[in-house]
């Protein structure tokens, strides 16, 4: 028994060390920095300043705007990407021909790095040389200043994110659909259920875990929105596209205000946890239930 336990610990040791080195230490270090006035290039040491950084971050109008933008972006992007991904998955699942081709071609945008996507769209959305404004001109519309107009910039970035990540939602949901037992559909059809009823009573309950996973993954990812904003708008115009990660980058990385950036990061982690708590609770609840059984 003892030898088995030793063996278990020996197997776990590398993972535990990795976890401590790559996760626990950075988190603890970030938390401790958030209570200091740590400026990376300062010649004197960092001083403990209590909750000052947190107070300043919360009082900063730009941070509050960044939080609102991030939450708004997250709600819109996650719901639209999930809904569109589900619709496309159901559509392709029902196709008898061309499903393979569509499956592969739809995935292309999500295979591109976000920086590449941002640079491609920057060129396409250009006022004078961009293909989008050229195409709109054929229909007598535009030109639109997509990235500098306060009424359009946020929506432009939202659209680009939906374009890139809907295929990811589609991929997971399509995989979920493949796992739904066909016998349930056949039984429902025999019982005379319509398409809507089959969808709401068979498809949706069966793919619910996948659906929640998509929502969780996209929630976490949209909360980290950075590359597109930093390249396309720099957070403007008038902070209308500033996100929390961009705020942290500007203060903590570019201006090297490590203590201040750390405080903003901890607040962001807390916010992500708030939005992920439903899923986490559900996961933990499921495990407890299984354990009790």
């Amino acid at each position: 028994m003892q030898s088995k336990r030793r063996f278990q610990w020996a197997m776990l040791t590398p993972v535990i060390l990795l976890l401590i080195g790559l996760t626990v230490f950075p988190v603890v270090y970030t938390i401790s920095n958030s209570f200091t006035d740590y400026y990376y290039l300062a010649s004197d040491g960092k001083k403990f300043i209590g909750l000052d950084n947190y107070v300043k971050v919360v009082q900063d109008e730009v941070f509050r705007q960044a939080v609102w933008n991030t939450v708004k972006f997250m709600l819109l992007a996650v719901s639209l990407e999930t809904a569109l991904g589900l619709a496309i998955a159901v559509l392709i699942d029902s196709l008898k021909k061309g499903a393979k081709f569509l499956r592969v071609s739809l995935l292309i945008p999500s295979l591109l790095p976000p920086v590449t996507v941002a640079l491609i769209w920057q060129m396409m959305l250009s006022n004078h040389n961009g293909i989008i404004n050229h195409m709109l001109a054929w229909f007598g519309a535009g030109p639109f200043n997509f990235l500098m107009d306060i009424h359009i910039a946020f929506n432009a970035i939202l659209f680009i994110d939906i374009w890139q990540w809907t295929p990811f939602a589609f991929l997971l949901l399509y995989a979920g659909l493949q796992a739904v037992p066909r016998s349930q559909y056949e039984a429902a059809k025999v019982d005379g259920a319509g398409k809507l009823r089959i969808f709401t009573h068979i498809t949706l309950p069966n793919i619910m875990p996948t659906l929640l996973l998509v929502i969780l993954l996209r929630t976490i990812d949209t909360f980290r929105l950075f590359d597109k904003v930093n390249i396309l708008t720099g957070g403007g115009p008038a902070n209308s596209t500033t996100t929390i990660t961009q705020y942290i980058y500007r203060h903590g990385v570019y201006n090297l205000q490590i203590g201040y950036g750390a405080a903003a990061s901890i607040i962001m982690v807390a916010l992500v946890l708030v939005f992920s708590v439903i899923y986490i609770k559900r996961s933990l609840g499921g495990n407890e239930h299984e354990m009790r059984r």
Partner: protein
Amino acid sequence: MRKRIVIMLSLTLAASIFTGCQSNTQSGAQSNGQSTNQTNSESNSSANNQSKSEGKLVVAARGGSHVAAMEAVKAEFEQAHHAKIEIIGLEAADLKQKISLDAKNKNGAYDLIMADDPWMPEFSEAGIFANLSELGVEADADFEESSLALGKHPYGTGDLYALPFSGNVQLFFYNKQLLDSYSEEVPQSWEEVLEIANKVHAEGGLTGYVIRGQQGNPIVSDFLPIFWAYGGQVFDENWSAQVDSEAGRQALDTYSKLLAVGANYETTDIVSSVSEGRAAMALGWPSWFITGETASAEYAPIPSKATADGQAASTGMIGNWMMGVTANSQNQELAADFLSFITSSETQKKMVEHGGVPTRKSVYLDSELAAKYKHFPVQLEALQNSVARPRTAKWSRVEEALGVELSAAIAGTKSIEAALADANEAINQIMQ
């Protein structure tokens, strides 16, 4: 037996991970606790080992034409010194971050670094640069004075820490054909700029003036020359913010009016719209419009007065890229030699053909080059009358705060008065 072997293997693996972490701890502890610095630390040691054994220098540079120009001329130095020069081109924000993170390492990854001139106070105060005078690098009088002053700490009077590598200075760009078609001369005041912009917009339905209003550095660089022309200063002598002033309100009002009959574009669109005659005027940096011997638009010094009978002020913002030897370079003497070589008159003349922007008067006044590059006289004049952004180590943060408020004012989410008042308050908080 098998179990024991597995246990031994896993313990060895754990020990190696622990040892690996420990070797990086020194630099990691100095960093923000993230992996970036560990990567730096690794690249440092490899770069330094090579520096020592092969006489290799690593230059952290702003990507683009600067790198192309250096690459074109470095072979001569490499042959003469039996050295290898590696030039790493980086985007501006990335360059600043990498230089800063590397500064805390005992053995620096970079022997020479390029720095945008507003970074100089912050980098000099942090001890990132080696003192060039101690390395025997002379600040000879051939460098344009306004450029040379940027490399000294304190500004203009202190020791020399960097030499001017690229002599960028803001200019006024306009489409001559368009202005001729409206019988207009190059404007000498911002009042005239606004008049012409109104005329071009009203009569021709074209863009009168293009602003570069992206939040952050672009809008601040684009606005400050107008602010200076109206007699404004970002700080008074006690480093108290002065943007919320009559000059500030008038300048921002003019800026908003120019936008009303113009457009707000990023760099590529500014260049194409002015060059192709869809827009009349804009401010810009020479490297945007002038490639090699040709320019896609006409250029002039930035109007120095608010009104025709107003008082003239220096308005051409200097935006030099400086180069210095790092304090943690393990090859400082060779690095200093390369710095002298790359900023020498002969090398600058050669680099001009590859997109280099001179910082020496002798290069601008070279008759052969002046005949070939028509913009040289205007650019030298602009450099001589240029004005530097405030020399404070906190400029990046000040620029950030001012940029946010200027962006809000032109987007209409804040009134001019409210935006300037908020900018003033934010800047004063930063300067405390």
